[in-house]
């Protein structure tokens, strides 16, 4: 562009010189050939000038175009731009920044930067970053509140970069929306925490109530039972000769019922204790536990022909004490509900169910009608009578509690007289 300007200047000077010269040159003595020659030269200059003019106009258009681009890029940028002098005066502001601060651009130019800072403290922070930027010649970024012309504040992300001649360029991003969202998240987080604390406290109270309830159940409910049993026995022992067989039988039934009730109390306590105790996680060797239980079962009724098939190497992560309760009950049930068959087989193994590792205990005993499969796990719910198989109906509900506490599930399959399979998963 400067090249073109210089060239144009030159052409013009030469034409002017020619013209001034011609004023002196063209006299009476000037020959017509000379005039024609002069005219021709001027014509050539004129054409050249016209071409130059054309070029200038095009350059002008280019300039307009790039100014417009500059306007688009600078003024309509989605972020605010400011140029700061080394005296911390605002030298240039783009339209976006002016809009952010709710003020006309001219009102900001030549103002001190403190104009957009809410207070002294913000000034200190701002200057600190500015200083760092100048000293390290590196871009500094931070977030702070800025002050609008109407006195309102908004959250901004600031970037300051070193510019030319000790100037600094400032980039301002309005992050009010993000901050609001963050604040909302924080608020929600706090509320959640608050709620968790409240719940924990409530739970603690509930646990304590539960504990004292368990205590009085075990203590207070037992006392009258002891009296019933004790005095029934005293009657039998001290006044037995005054009772006939029918009377003695009644007393025997009274004592049986008290034993049964004591057992129920113990079972409820066991259940409540398991629901509130903490899990201690470790690697548990289920195979080993099952083998020990199988031996124990054999020794209780050595005459029974029961074959245990226990898969080797079954290990899970869990609470060993509680998982022993699970296997105690499942193997105990298998043992009990096969007792009506002369010979039986009890298998403990592992398999994949819907892509998940599941453990099973399968027997070929009395089984149950599969339509009651979900009833099994309810507390005190039984599918067999006390005469068929003794029990209180707490075992599987204990098992379910423990498996749930391990994050697993438990389910049952069975068919009458064709045995039962109890499945469980352990977490994950």
């Amino acid at each position, binding site marked *: 562009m400067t090249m073109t300007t210089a060239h144009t200047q030159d052409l013009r000077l030469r034409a002017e010189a020619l013209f001034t010269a011609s004023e002196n040159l063209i006299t009476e003595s000037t020959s017509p050939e000379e005039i024609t020659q002069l005219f021709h030269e001027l014509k050539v200059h004129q054409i050249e000038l016209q071409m130059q003019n054309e070029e200038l106009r095009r350059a002008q258009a280019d300039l307009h175009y790039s100014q417009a681009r500059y306007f688009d890029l600078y003024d309509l940028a989605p972020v605010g731009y400011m140029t700061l002098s080394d005296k911390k005066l605002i030298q240039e502001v783009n339209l976006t920044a002016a809009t952010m601060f709710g003020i006309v651009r001219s009102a900001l130019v030549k103002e001190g930067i403190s104009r957009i800072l809410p207070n002294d403290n913000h000034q200190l922070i701002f200057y600190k970053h500015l200083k760092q930027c100048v000293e390290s010649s590196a871009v500094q970024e931070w977030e702070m509140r800025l002050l609008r012309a109407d006195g309102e504040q908004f959250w901004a992300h600031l970037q300051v970069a070193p510019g030319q001649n000790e100037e600094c360029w400032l980039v301002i991003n309005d992050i009010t929306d993000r901050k609001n969202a963050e604040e909302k998240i924080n608020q929600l987080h706090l509320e959640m925490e608050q709620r968790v604390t409240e719940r924990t406290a409530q739970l603690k109270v509930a646990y304590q109530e539960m504990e004292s309830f368990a205590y009085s159940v075990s203590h207070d409910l037992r006392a009258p039972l002891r009296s019933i049993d*004790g005095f029934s026995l005293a009657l039998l022992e001290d006044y037995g000769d005054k009772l006939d067989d029918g009377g003695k039988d009644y007393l025997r039934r009274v004592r049986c019922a008290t034993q049964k009730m004591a057992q129920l109390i*113990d079972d409820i306590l066991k259940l409540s204790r398991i629901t509130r105790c903490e899990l201690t996680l470790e690697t548990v060797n289920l195979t080993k536990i099952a083998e020990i239980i199988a031996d124990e079962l054999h020794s209780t009724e050595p005459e029974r022909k029961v074959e245990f098939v226990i898969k080797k190497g079954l290990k899970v992560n869990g609470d060993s004490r509680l998982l022993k309760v699970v296997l105690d009950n499942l193997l105990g049930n298998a043992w009990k509900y096969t007792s009506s068959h002369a010979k039986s087989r009890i298998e403990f193994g592992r398999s994949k169910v819907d892509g998940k590792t599941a453990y099973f205990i399968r027997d070929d005993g009395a089984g149950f009608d599969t339509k009651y499969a979900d009833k099994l796990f309810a507390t005190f719910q039984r599918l067999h009578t006390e005469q068929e198989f003794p029990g209180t109906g707490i075992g599987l509900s204990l098992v379910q509690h423990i498996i749930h506490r391990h994050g697993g599930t438990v389910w049952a399959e069975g068919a009458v007289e064709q045995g039962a399979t109890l499945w469980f998963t352990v977490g994950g």
Partner: protein
Amino acid sequence: MKNKWILLVEDNADDEELSRRALKKNKILNEVIVARDGAEALDYLLGVGNHAGHNIDNLPAVVLLDLKLPKIDGLEVLRRLRENEKTAHVPVVILTSSREEQDIANAYMNGCNSYIRKPVDFTQFNEAIQTLGLYWLLLNEPPVE
């Protein structure tokens, strides 16, 4: 044997009667004195309060102590007995229907000599009392100071 008496701390009259009967059945004929709550037991053993002036030199051969008692509970009674040098060595057997591990741990921590759970089956209770009698009143000599 004559002045080897038993202090039974028991608020439940039925349990008192059954305990007496069990002792009698097991031929333990020692005198049984009953305290109805923890406060009375302490007053009696330490010779204070309602039993101020009571001669406390003749300590019981054994204290059968229920855990859940009115006024002052069994564990607190045990703690106070152990604190006092006069009664620090009196044999104490906790008799209770609570099986909560907590109770057992606490009882042992406070220095009881034995812990017997009153079973609902009275035959078992008889056996427990029998063991108690043999152990504390016949075999075990009181500590020599």
